[in-house]
């Protein structure tokens, strides 16, 4: 026990002390903050109103009503205008008007230069065909285009209804927006969690596991290779059992990883809780719900997640340790570890397979496969009620799988750590398993 602890501590201390670890721990949250806040901040950045000219070749006044609608659009608490619209009548001389407006499009955006972001072309067939042409320098911005479309569409709809003789009161009431409010049902009870939040939670859980395996499982492997190539292995082998060596390594690396992920989790909570305030520092004024917010973990979900996380980490780390024992150099491991990486990818991908039907046959089956269950079962638990029996069965199969894999891996490890030279072929590997 004492020896195992010194192995764990050695792995942990040497790992935590590296510059890479320090930088990763600090940069992780910064990167996360950037990922969460920057897109939102950039999208809602105060870039001033879009300058749009409407070339209006429709005699019925559709262009005027569009202009009014766009000019009325505002955003934020201080009701900044979204558009600065210039209405240019163009009946009968559309081509000329449009070309002269286009000449100003994409020019300097300074107020006095008279530059435009784009030209909205309204013709007398616009209403019938539902086609309004927009020629602009900002058509590449999906956000801009969606916003414009959302503004133009109701105006056209209203116009059509009016022409069909529907009275304006009916139109107004029909134009009320419809919102689908989703709430997750768990254990027969409605929770406060929205649908997006559930998906988000599932995504975060799997991504954290994926990250831990890719970042730290791989470190277990490189650490084994390092011990082999530095030839320190003989001293270790004569003092420690292969199981002590492997378990100590996995636990030490795992602890370093868990510490880093823990720090990131705290940072993530802070970012999502105080994101709006942080975003304000960047000059963005976000609505309180603009970031969606990470839904809170319930204690039972956290427990399920952690159980499967640990089992999954141990399983894959053991696999990585075995791969490391088979190789002589870090270069070799890159190729040799690809089957393990594929299994991890399969686990991550299976998440998407079960989002639609968390209690379907596929989901139930995947929950029993040790390699993917750590990815699948916590998500099922988060998305839809999962019976206690099924939960325990999944956990049992994962733990059993983990034990078998660890046992097999430690046999490969035992032979591999002292075998230098060529990487074993599959038949050789099977012989290792038998002779160890």
């Amino acid at each position, binding site marked *: 026990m*004492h*020896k195992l602890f*010194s*192995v764990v501590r*050695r792995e942990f*201390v*040497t790992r935590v002390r*590296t510059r890479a670890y320090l930088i990763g721990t600090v940069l992780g949250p910064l990167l996360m903050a950037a990922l969460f806040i920057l897109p939102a901040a950039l999208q809602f950045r105060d870039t001033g109103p879009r300058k749009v000219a409407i070339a209006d070749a429709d005699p019925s006044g559709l262009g005027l009503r569009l202009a009014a609608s766009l000019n009325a659009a505002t955003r934020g608490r201080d009701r900044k205008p979204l558009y600065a619209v210039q209405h240019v009548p163009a009946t009968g001389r559309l081509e000329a008007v449009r070309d002269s407006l286009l000449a100003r499009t994409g020019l300097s955006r300074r107020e006095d230069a008279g530059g435009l972001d784009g030209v909205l072309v309204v013709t007398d067939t616009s209403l019938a065909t539902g086609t309004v042409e927009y020629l602009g320098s900002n058509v590449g911005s999906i956000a801009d285009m969606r916003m414009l479309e959302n503004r133009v569409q109701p105006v056209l709809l209203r116009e059509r209804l009016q022409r069909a003789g529907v009275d304006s009161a009916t139109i107004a009431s029909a134009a009320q927006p419809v919102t689908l409010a989703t709430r997750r049902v768990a254990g027969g009870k409605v929770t406060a969690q929205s649908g997006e939040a559930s998906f988000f939670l599932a995504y975060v859980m799997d991504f954290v596991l994926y990250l831990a395996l890719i970042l730290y499982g791989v470190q277990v492997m490189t650490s084994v290779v*390092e*011990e082999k190539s*530095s*030839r*320190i*292995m*003989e*001293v*270790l*082998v*004569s*003092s*420690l*059992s292969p199981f002590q060596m492997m378990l100590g390594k996995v636990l030490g690396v795992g602890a370093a990883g868990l510490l880093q992920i823990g720090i990131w989790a705290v940072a993530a909570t802070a970012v999502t809780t105080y994101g709006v305030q942080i975003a304000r520092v960047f000059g963005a004024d976000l609505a309180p719900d603009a970031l969606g917010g990470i839904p809170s973990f319930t204690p039972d979900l956290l427990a399920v997640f952690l159980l499967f996380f640990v089992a999954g980490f141990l399983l894959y780390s053991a696999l990585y340790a075995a791969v490391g024992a088979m190789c002589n150099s870090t270069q070799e491991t890159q190729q040799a570890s690809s089957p393990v990486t594929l299994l991890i990818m399969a686990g991550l991908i299976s998440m998407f397979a079960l989002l639609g039907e968390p209690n379907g046959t596929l989901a139930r089956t995947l929950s029993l496969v040790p390699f993917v269950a750590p990815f699948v079962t916590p998500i099922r638990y988060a998305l839809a009620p999962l019976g206690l029996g099924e939960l325990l069965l999944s956990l049992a199969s994962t733990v059993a799988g983990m034990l078998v894999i660890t046992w097999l891996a430690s046999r490969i490890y035992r032979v591999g750590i*002292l075998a*230098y*030279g*060529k990487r074993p072929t599959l038949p050789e590997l099977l012989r290792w398993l038998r002779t160890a």
Partner: protein
Amino acid sequence: MSDQAVVRIDHVTKRFAGHVAVRDLSFDVPRGGIFGLLGPNGAGKSTTIRMIMNVITPDAGRVTVFGRPASRDLSDRIGFLPEERGLYKKMKVLEHLVFFAEIKGLSHRDAARRGEAWLARLGVADWAQHKVEDLSKGMQQKVQFIGALLHEPELVVLDEPFSGLDPVNSQVMRDVVVEIARQGRTVLFSTHIMEQAEKMCDHVVIIARGRKVVDGRLADVRREAGTRHLVLGFADGSRSPAAAAVLQDRTLLARVHDYGASAEAELAPGAAPGRVLAALVGAGVELTRFEVAEPSLHSIFVARVGAEAAVAPASEEVGRA
């Protein structure tokens, strides 16, 4: 079984893909003193040591340590310096020593205290807080040497401990080895440099191509090799063709190791030392030394192992593949 044997190698054979590294080898390492495991490169020394340390297991025969089958349970009583030196490059020196001692069962505090004392003794105290990778190769070897001794083992197994060291550092480590033996503990070390073994060992085993060729107390081995052994010293420029003819006369000298300014020779059967002296003087050789002596370990080694064994295939290297 003799209770005095700390290590007993009993008809041990170890094969590696394609060749036999150790063939039906048997010897005892007596308790206390310095035991030399000698042999040319590729003789099977490291393979034997790795079997004693239970890093590998023999294909046939038994290895007994402290009267019990070799196993990891005994490792806390053994200190081991493998032929392949290896340290964690990114660890600090003292930290590394503490780790070595801890996996031998020492407490953290004891390990640190002893580590500091040893670093001071071997003159590397200033490097305690440096990373291993900053150390020279010789210093790294010292660190690993200390790592094998921190837990004060009853048996110290050193595989080629002095290779690659300068004379000063080599002497420092030899002093340590001698002191351990004086404390009644056992040191088993391997080397292919006979002069080292000759100065230090109480007991030697010489192996060649996996087989034992010499086994016994050094004094006995030398005595048994006979007093029919001559040590010759030549004055500068006195080596004439006539002198060479005397040295090559197999009716006088059965075997000659000619070092130029000196030579060791074994008398041919029936030849008397006086005849050799007369022949040399007759050939005009100016002798600075003429001594009937016990043979050096080197000449015993060459005599028993044979010149061809000195260039035996590097089977140990192959064995690791």
